[in-house]
């Protein structure tokens, strides 16, 4: 983000806010991922332990979600840059 309009003290306060937010967001990403992969992969409640099939599904689900959100992040930045360029051209 562009903090150029902030004073040095404000920019430093903002950095702390961003750091804390990233921590919170990471936590939510993590628990959201657990919820998502549990929901998609686990459906057999005849035992307490994960089956091999469930374990493999969770692994792939985790990897795929991370790659997905990485790709979305990259495209997001491109689209955002495009949008800002359009706004400044007006």
């Amino acid at each position: 983000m562009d903090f150029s309009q902030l004073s040095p003290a404000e920019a430093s306060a903002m950095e702390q806010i961003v750091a804390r937010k990233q921590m919170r967001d990471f936590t939510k990403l993590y628990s959201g991922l657990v919820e998502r992969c549990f929901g998609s992969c686990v459906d057999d409640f005849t035992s307490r332990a994960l089956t091999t099939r469930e374990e493999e599904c969770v692994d792939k689900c985790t990897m795929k979600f991370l790659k997905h959100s990485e790709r979305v992040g990259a495209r997001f930045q491109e689209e955002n840059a495009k949008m800002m360029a359009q706004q400044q051209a007006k």
Partner: protein
Amino acid sequence: MVFGFGGGSSSGGSQMSMGGGSATSPQIEAATAELDMITDVFNRLVSSCHAKCISTRYLEPDLNKGESVCVDRCVSKFFAVNAKVGEKMQAIGQQAGGAQAGAGGGGSFF
């Protein structure tokens, strides 16, 4: 402004400075609000495009070709919808003389 919505962001900014705030400056508040908005939009984008593009059979750990192409187009379309909704709400806001007509979510019953 990193995330240039139709106008919701800037009108929000002016509303924010009304608030003042004791410990934090209006600038910090505006930046924090913007940060929250971007994150919120990004999270919804991730989950929307996951629902539209990613098979939940999880046959492989990587995005396959079809999924990758779908994700790229999905992000573009999501931005287009975002712009469209922004225009629409700005138009309504102007009609209503700047009031958040039927904004719901809190605006209407205080």
